[in-house]
């Protein structure tokens, strides 16, 4: 059974009918004199959202504000209209996977997840724990003390404990830390499946590849500020002050370079070993005109690759600026 098929069965029957809205409204948080989060407003809905930023950018602070383990110095944080600070009841619908490795290491994973189910007062804690362990593929090792686990296995035990009550909102702080590639892929499938089922998933990461593979939308945090929000390809296209870079392959790259440089949407072209590198100042006009001008010039266009539309490029631009 694949991870996606497994997630189709809810862990506990709390109902998935109405997705919850997570909202930050002009939130600021200080640690003493240090501003960790600076006037952030955002809204999260169902699906997987990646919280991306360099170390120390404020990602964990945002997750702790959302889980009620920090209070906003200014602004408001709400989950379905309720502020999580001093309201532990929000954990009926919220699951949290903290970053730190501290866990009740003397318990086995089965004991740990069952205890979590009991603390959530689930009607059948053992069955809920078994389903959660099954989701993260921990059944085989579930009776070993957590202190004997690798870091990746501990992460999976923490995820199982956070999923045991079938939360509508799942917050994960660097969830892929310490996981091997197979575990990482499985966890991505699991989270993607949960997002497709209508849950609101927010995970933080400083690893671009993880966010790019998994997240429907990204929230880029740099130095406590929200640098960008949304689909990263859309974010990239909105960065009109930076030329869009494409690599083209054609039947005659040199001739194509001559044709393209005449276009007002193109800032520059250069012939490289990989093909013709084009710097377009206007993404929309360039992509609309490209097919026409090559056809008119009698040049066959073989390949068009946007080379800076990756999340890595977007992130580099945002952090650099």
């Amino acid at each position, binding site marked *: 059974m694949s991870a996606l098929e497994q997630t189709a069965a809810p862990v506990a029957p709390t109902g998935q009918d109405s997705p919850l809205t997570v909202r930050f409204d002009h939130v600021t948080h200080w640690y003493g004199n240090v501003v960790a989060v600076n006037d952030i407003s955002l809204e999260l809905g169902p699906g997987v959202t990646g919280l991306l930023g360099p170390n120390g950018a404020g990602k964990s602070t945002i997750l702790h504000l959302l889980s009620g*383990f920090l*209070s906003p110095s200014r602004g408001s944080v709400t989950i379905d209209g309720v502020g999580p600070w001093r309201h532990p009841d929000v954990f009926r619908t919220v699951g949290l996977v903290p970053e730190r490795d*501290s866990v*009740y290491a*003397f*318990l086995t994973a089965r004991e740990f997840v069952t*205890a979590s189910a009991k*603390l959530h007062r689930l009607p059948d804690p053992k069955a809920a724990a078994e389903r959660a362990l099954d989701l993260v593929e921990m059944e085989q090792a579930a009776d070993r003390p957590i202190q004997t686990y690798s870091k990746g296995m501990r992460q999976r035990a923490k995820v199982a404990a956070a999923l045991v009550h079938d939360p509508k909102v799942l917050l994960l702080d660097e969830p892929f830390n310490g996981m091997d590639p197979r575990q990482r892929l499985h966890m991505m499938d699991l989270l993607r499946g949960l997002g497709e089922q209508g849950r609101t998933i927010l995970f933080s990461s400083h690893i671009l590849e993880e966010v790019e593979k998994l997240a429907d939308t990204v929230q880029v945090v740099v130095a406590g500020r929200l640098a960008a929000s949304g689909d990263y390809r859309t974010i990239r296209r909105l960065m009109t002050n930076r030329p869009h870079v494409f690599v083209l392959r054609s039947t005659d790259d040199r001739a194509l370079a001559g044709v393209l440089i005449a276009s007002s949407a193109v800032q520059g072209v250069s012939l490289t070993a990989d093909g013709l590198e084009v710097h377009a100042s206007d993404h929309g006009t360039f992509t609309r005109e490209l097919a026409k001008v090559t056809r008119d010039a009698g040049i066959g266009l073989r390949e068009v690759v946007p080379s800076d539309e990756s999340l890595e490029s977007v992130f580099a631009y945002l952090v650099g600026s």
Partner: protein
Amino acid sequence: MYNSTVAWISFRALFGRRRALLFVLPALVLIVITLVLKNAHGTQSDWPALVLGRVGVGAVVPLTALLVGTSVLGSEIDDNSVLHLLATPVPRRDVIVSKIAVSAVTTMLFAAVPVLIAGIIAQGPHKLAFGCFLGAVLGSIVYSCLFVLISAALRHPVIYALAYVAIWEQLIASLVGGAKYLSVEQWSLGIAHSVSSSGGLDSHLTFTPSIVLSVIAVVLTTWYASERLSAFTVRAD
């Protein structure tokens, strides 16, 4: 208010750490002192009241409660494992009550019961042993509330709890007359004296104020500890 899952995790955490070995040390010292004095003086003189009062109720109970009370919550806050407990809808008051219950029962086991055993070794099944046992039971409960509160409210709870025992209980309460009304040791000795009528106990309070003040302390510390845990914040790295 009492959550059995929180208590179960707390017991497992308490006895899963090497620090648990320390719990027996104060009791062991009390038993050894009692055996040595029993050999030296038999049942003559007033040494049993001094040992049970000063060493048992006055030192073994607060030290054991300190070790246990700061472990049941303080250690989890220190290593952040408490996040797994708090990332659930369990009311914070229930967490505190369960932690206090675990601390009080463990302290009774490792301090109040040894006081009873020491009393029986010293004088046989006498009123003094039973009175000091009841005083130690009361002390186990009140000290547990206090040390769990310190763990919920302050970083480095062991240092603050030790300062409280050494400075307030042992120094100020024995020197300043009015401070005796705010001394857990005096409340415990008040109970012990009321039951045993032993003049050798350095008790300055009677039964009623000891009980009333203890109940007030338990209610206030439990309430404030719950408030502090409700406002628990994750520390910045």
